[in-house]
C-alpha cells in the first residue's frame, strides 16, 4: 500500500491505546509498530508521574511505550540532548514538539546524530506550561487541590483540569488561556512567542487541529518518506487505521496555525522589554541581568543547538578571574548561537538566577537570522551561516 495523500485522520486500532492517547493514540501505536517491525531499536517517550511530571524513558519495550500515551502540557523538557547522548548510534523513534525536532536537526547538521536513524513523530505545539505554575494555577484560579488533578487538556483556547473528588467522581473545570496569561500564568514565555506550531520538519506532524469535534482521531501530515514508511507499516501491520483528512479539516488546521502564529508574534512584541530601550539603557539592562550569572553552565548543558561539549568557545575565552561587567562566557555564548538559536527557552528555564536568557538571546539572533535568511532547525540541507558544521572535529556520527 502506498499513501496517496499528505493529510490523514488516523487512530490506534487497539482501543486501549486509542483511549489513553491524547487524540487517536496514533503516535503511540506508530511507535509500537516501529519497534515491533524493527524500524527502530528504542523509543524515547515520557512516563507520566502526575499531570505535572513526565520522566523521559528510552525503551525497547512496547508495553512501556503504551503506558506513556497521552500529552503532558506541564512537561517543558526538550529531548534533543537525550537523543545526542543516548541515541547517536541507535535507531530511535520519538515524539517531537517543533523545538525538539529543530534541535535534533541542528545537531544532525553538526554531525552529532544521524537523521537516517531517527524517526521524528512530530506533535503540533501550542506550548507548554511550567509544572509548578500549573500547580499554583490549579489552586488559585481553579480552586482545586493540585494533587487531586488527574488529567489536563488544552482545547479551543481553554485549559481543562479534571480532578478526582472523594468517592472517585471526576470534576472538570476550565479557564481561558488568554485570561490566565493576562494574569501571568499559562504557557512559558518562550512558548507564548514561539511561531513554529506544526513540526513539518519532522517525519510526521500530528495534532488535533483539523479533527472533527468529538472524534478520537489524530490529524497526521506526512512530511518525509521515512514518515510515510512507518505510517504505512503501522497500517499494514494492523496497529493503525486511517482515512484521508477532509478538505475542511485541512483548511481549519491551517487557519488555526495562522491564528496561533499571529498571536505568538504579538506576544513577542509585548514581551520585548529590550528593543524600545535606548542604547545605554539596554546595556544597563544586560549588565543588570547578566551580572547575576553564577557560571553554573546549565544554559550550555541544556541548549538543544549547542554541540560544542569540550570544544566550547564560550568557555575558551572565559576566565573567572576577570572582572568584566558581563563575563566573556555570556558574551560569547550569545554570539556563538546567534545563527542557530531556536528560542526554545530551555536556557531560561534552568538558569538558577532567573536571567531572561531567551529574551536577551533573541535580541541578537533574530536580527541575525533575518538578515542571513536562515531559520534554524527547519531543513537539514541548509547549513548554518557560521558554517561551523565544516569545522567540527568531534563528530559523533559519520
Amino acid at each position: 500500500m502506498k499513501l496517496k495523500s499528505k493529510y490523514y485522520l488516523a487512530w490506534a486500532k487497539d482501543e486501549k491505546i486509542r483511549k489513553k492517547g491524547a487524540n487517536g493514540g496514533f503516535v503511540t501505536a506508530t511507535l509500537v509498530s516501529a519497534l515491533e517491525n524493527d524500524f527502530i531499536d528504542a523509543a524515547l517517550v515520557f512516563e507520566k508521574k502526575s499531570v505535572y511530571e513526565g520522566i523521559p524513558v528510552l525503551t525497547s519495550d512496547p508495553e512501556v511505550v503504551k503506558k506513556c500515551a497521552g500529552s503532558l502540557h506541564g512537561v517543558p523538557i526538550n529531548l534533543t540532548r537525550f537523543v545526542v547522548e543516548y541515541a547517536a548510534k541507535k535507531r530511535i523513534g520519538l515524539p517531537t514538539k517543533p523545538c525538539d525536532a529543530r534541535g535534533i536537526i541542528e545537531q544532525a547538521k553538526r554531525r552529532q546524530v544521524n537523521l537516517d536513524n531517527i524517526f521524528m513523530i512530530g506533535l503540533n505545539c501550542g506550548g507548554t506550561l511550567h509544572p509548578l505554575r500549573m500547580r499554583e494555577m490549579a489552586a488559585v484560579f481553579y480552586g482545586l487541590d493540585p494533587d487531586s488533578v488527574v488529567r489536563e487538556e488544552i482545547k479551543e483556547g481553554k485549559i481543562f483540569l479534571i480532578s478526582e473528588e472523594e468517592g472517585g467522581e471526576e470534576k472538570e473545570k476550565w479557564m481561558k488561556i488568554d485570561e490566565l496569561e493576562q494574569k501571568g500564568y499559562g504557557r512559558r514565555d518562550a512558548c507564548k512567542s514561539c511561531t513554529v506550531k506544526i513540526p513539518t520538519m519532522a517525519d510526521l506532524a500530528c495534532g488535533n487541529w483539523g479533527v472533527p469535534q468529538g472524534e478520537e482521531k489524530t490529524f497526521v501530515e506526512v512530511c518525509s518518506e521515512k514518515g510515510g514508511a512507518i505510517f504505512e507499516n503501522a497500517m499494514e501491520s494492523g496497529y493503525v487505521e486511517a482515512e484521508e483528512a477532509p478538505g475542511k479539516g485541512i483548511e481549519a488546521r491551517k487557519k488555526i496555525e495562522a491564528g496561533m502564529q499571529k498571536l505568538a508574534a504579538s506576544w513577542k512584541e509585548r514581551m520585548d522589554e529590550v528593543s524600545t530601550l535606548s542604547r545605554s539603557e539596554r546595556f544597563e539592562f544586560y549588565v543588570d541581568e547578566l551580572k547575576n550569572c553564577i557560571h553554573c553552565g546549565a544554559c550550555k548543558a541544556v541548549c538543544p543547538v549547542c554541540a560544542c561539549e569540550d570544544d566550547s568557545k564560550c568557555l575558551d575565552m572565559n576566565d573567572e578571574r576577570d572582572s568584566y561587567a558581563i563575563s566573556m562566557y555570556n558574551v560569547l555564548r550569545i554570539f556563538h548561537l546567534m545563527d542557530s538559536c531556536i528560542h526554545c527557552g530551555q536556557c531560561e528555564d534552568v538558569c538558577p538566577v532567573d536571567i531572561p536568557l531567551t529574551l536577551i538571546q533573541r535580541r541578537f539572533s533574530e536580527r541575525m537570522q533575518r538578515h542571513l535568511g536562515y531559520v534554524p532547525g527547519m531543513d537539514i540541507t541548509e547549513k548554518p551561516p557560521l558554517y561551523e558544521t565544516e569545522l567540527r572535529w568531534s563528530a559523533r556520527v559519520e
Partner: protein
Amino acid sequence: MEMETKSSICPGCSIGCGLYLLQAEEGEERKIKILHRPTSPMNEGKLCKFGTDLHMYYEREVLNNSVEGGEVKQEEAIREAKERLKGFKPDELAFIALPSTITNEEILSFVSLASEFGCENVSFGFERFFREIPEEASYIIERGLPFSEVEKATKIILFFLDPFVHYPLLARRILKAKKNGARVIEVSFAKNERKIADEVVLVEPMEIERIKEKKEMFADSLIIGELTPYTDSQFLALMLWLTASTSSRLFLFKPFLNSTGAILFGKGSGRGDLSEIIEGIERGEIKALYSLETDIAGAMLGGEEVAETISKLDLLIEQNAFRTPLSDVANITICSEPFFMKKGTIVNIEGRLLDIGGESEKGLQAMESMGKGRTYEEVHEEVKRKLGLAEISEFEIAVKREEKSFEMAEPKAEIEEIKGEEGYFLRYKTNPFFWNGIQSKNFVEISPAAMRKLGLFRGDEVEVVQGERKERMGFKISELPDYLILSEAKMSIKPLYVAEPHRMEMLTRVELRRAKR
C-alpha cells in the same frame, strides 16, 4: 541500551535541589547524566554548578570493603568492625557523621548503633550550639523556613552571607523578594559583587560587635545567616540577640544536605561536639572512631592537621561509598551505596521531607546488622512517627517552625583580637564544593589597592602566607576593602584558633606577596 531515569536530590547543600539522574549502561560503561527537574518545589528545575556537574561527584572511585588494607567481603568487614569496637570502653569511642549524604533512617540507625556500644560521643557537627544558647532559642538552630517566606519578606538582612556563593539557589528567592518590593540590606566585610542589596553596611573585621549600634535597622526583618561547624559562638549569640531584641526572624542556612534531619533525629542527651571529639582524639582519650560518609580531613579547613590527629587513633572505621583520604588510612572500610541509590529520606532546610528515590538499603543494613537488626521499614516508620506524618509529600512543609520570643543577653565580650601576620585579613567564602571536599577555585580575590601595592600584573600570582604555610594562587580584583582577601579556594591556611577549634572563625590574618614570576 536501556536508560533509567530517577528522581533524585542534590547532596551539595541543605537546599536539596531536585533533579533527574539518568543512568545508561552500554557494555561495561555506565554513564550518569544530570537533568533538570522542573517539578521540584525547592529549586523549580534549576541547579547551581555543583548540581549541574553532579555526575562528576558520582564518578569518583568507589570504596571497597577492607580490613587493614586487605579487601574482604562486606560481612567480614562488618563482623570485624563490631568485634573491634567491643574492645573499647564507651568513652573511648566516638561516632561522627557530617550529614551530607546521610538519610534520616541512617541517622536513627547510627545513633542506635552508637548506643549499642554505650557511646555518647556522637556528632553531626552542630551539637555545641545547643549548649551555648537559651533553650527557647534552639528552634532557630533546629528549623529553617520555607522559601515562600523569603519571597514574601518585606525586609531582608543578609548577615555575612553571599547567597550567590554560599547557597546559590537561595539567591533567586531574594531576587524575587526584591521584585515583590522587599528592601535588602547587606551586612558584610565587603560589598556583594552582584550588588544585590539596596543598602550595604560594611563592618570592619575587628569591630563586628559594633553592628549592635545599628540595631534599629534590623527591626521586623528576616535575617538570613549561616551556621556551620566553624561558626563562632559569639557570632551566633550576636545574631540571636539582634533577632530577639528587634522582633525579627532568623533563618540560618547550613552546609550539609540533611543538617535538619541530623539535628532532629540525632537529638539527645550527652552528644559530643565535633571539635571536642577531635580534641579528645588529640589528647588520646578517644581511641576509636566510626566515621559515616564523612571525610573530615577533606571537609574541614586545616585538613592536614586533622589527618594527623586521626592517625593517633587505635581504630578508624570509615563507612562510605567513595574513596577519601580518610578511607585510605582507615583500619576498616565498609562500602555503602552512592547517595542517589539510597532508599530513604532527608529533611531540607525548608523543612520538606524528601524521598531520595533509590532502592538500596546497603549502608543502613551494614549498621543495623551490627546493631538492633531492624528492617528499613521499621526505621522509616520511626522517622514518620517522630515527625507525626502519615505520608511524604515534597510539596508539604513537614518540619514547621513557630516563632517564639526568647531572652538573649547582650553579647558583651569584644571579639578577641585576631592574632597573626600583619597586613591582610583572609576570609573563606564557602560554597557547596568547599564543604564536599572539592577544590573549585584556584584564585583569591584581592582589592585594587593590594594589586597596586604589590605591583601585580595580569597573569601574575600571589602568595598567601601564614607563618610556615604558603599558598600560591591566582588572583581576581574585586571591589573589596584594602585589607581584605576573599577565598573560595580551600587552602592550608586556616583560622588561628587551632588550639580551640570551637573558637574558629572564617577570618584570619595573613600576609600577601607577589609570587616570583
